[in-house]
């Protein structure tokens, strides 16, 4: 799962950066990612097994594909929400486009981007469970084994573990998101105005 995010997040963010100022590209990219996101996981696995075979590869590929939408969409939204005057100040003071992106636009969009990663990660936990069907292993195996053996304890244990995992991942990323909203390297709490603006 972590590998899938590692594979999908950088290109999704990159695509988001490219699309943020190009409405047509944004519509196309978010639309395409949205269609992929709506494909049921079983169907997607079935489609991927044909070219990729069984095992971890189709599982990672599916998770990566599902991750694109939330990360891409939040990157576009986050970048568009950056205050225009901050971007103009960056340009006006002599930042190159790349410097403005790395020093101003991305840092300001980062909490929203991480929010997207969070959604992607939680989705991935659920989808990864089903990956047992393509012989990728994982806790999903225990659920399916339990179902076959009519062993409710095993099913319950595996389910609770997966739910716990999802909650942990979600909570951890929520914490990261909150810290980012507060701002790096600072212990102060965010002011009212900022919270209102970013909501």
């Amino acid at each position, binding site marked *: 799962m972590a590998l899938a995010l590692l594979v999908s997040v950088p290109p999704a963010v990159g695509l988001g950066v490219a699309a943020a100022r190009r409405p047509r590209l944004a519509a196309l990219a978010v639309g395409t990612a949205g269609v992929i996101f709506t494909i049921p996981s079983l169907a997607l696995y079935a489609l991927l097994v044909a070219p990729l075979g069984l095992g971890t590869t189709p599982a990672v590929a599916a998770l990566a594909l599902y991750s694109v939408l939330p990360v891409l969409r939040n990157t576009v939204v986050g970048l568009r929400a950056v205050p225009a005057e901050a971007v103009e100040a960056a340009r006006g003071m002599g930042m190159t486009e790349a*410097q403005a992106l790395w020093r101003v636009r991305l840092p300001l969009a980062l909490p929203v981007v991480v929010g997207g990663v969070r959604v992607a990660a939680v989705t991935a936990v659920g989808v990864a469970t089903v990956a047992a069907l393509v012989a990728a292993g994982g806790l999903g195996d225990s659920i399916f084994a339990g179902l076959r053996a009519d062993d409710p304890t095993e099913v319950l244990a595996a389910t609770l573990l997966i739910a716990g995992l999802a909650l942990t991942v979600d909570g951890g990323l929520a914490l990261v998101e909150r810290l980012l909203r507060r701002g790096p390297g600072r212990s102060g709490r965010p002011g009212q105005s*900022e919270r209102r603006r970013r909501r």
Partner: protein
Amino acid sequence: MIRYEEATKRYGAGPPALDRLSLEVPAGETCVLVGPSGGGKTTALKLVNRLVEPTSGRVLIEGRDVASTDPVTLRRGIGYVIQQVGLFPHLDVAANVATVPRLLGWDRRRIDARVDELLDLVGLEPATYRRRRPEELSGGQRQRVGVARALAADPPVLLMDEPFGAVDPVTRARLQDEFIALQRRLRRTVLLVTHDIDEALRLGDRLAVLAAGGRLEQYGTPAEVLARPATPFVADFVGAGRTLRRLDLLSAADALAPAGSAPAAGGDGPAVAAGATLADVMTALLTTEGPSVRVVDADAVLGVVTIDSIRAALRRGTGPQPDAAVDGEAGVT
């Protein structure tokens, strides 16, 4: 020195945003671009740091066409205070002020020292404010940080777009006073945009009055613009209160009754300093029983001012054509 030569900016069809603007701002002076919205003020400002490129004509800084300098390099050498301040909300005050020095690759110690120096300059105690974030500052404090940030790399030219627009009137007046004091010390070449004629008259060594369609209606000192509006538009924009405003720009010493005249011999009434504005003198005249006030410099009495001598001073204006000024005024009211 900033020089516009026939600078024109068009966006699509229709009237230009800026129409053949030609003017020169001498080094060390503050030129205020003033006029109603749609007058091309901000466009004119942004031509200087190439945030906007002219459709035709050119802009020169120190005799050098800005188009011949790479925009990024150019902008790092020009201070820029934008509308709504535009501080970076994710960075603290020190990092905001350090923006341009960091881009220029100064070493850390030099940047730290410069940040403290600038915060002192704009009246923010460095120890208190360095680590604050923009949302923890009042509107006035944000403006000060914005000015400090613009001055960070010691640019000879400063562009300010409605720099005091986002604050309440009391703070605004105080920031204006601070700006005047600062500029008296630093003597930068400043181009400042405002739609507020009072602000323009207070801050500008020169005013460029722009009308809708980006036409320059008049370019001159505040005293000239008030005494002799070049066009009906300027007279209207400056407003009917301009005689009163002129009283703020002239001093008691400008309006002494001629030596040897009857009132000059009288020599009584309340005393005002030679540097007092004619508005102060008028106040003194209105609150005294007698026909005149005495103008003193230290202990010496320079002469007296009467209503007639004030009228004469207003008619003299700031140069030739005294009658034009009076006619213009009558036309407005």
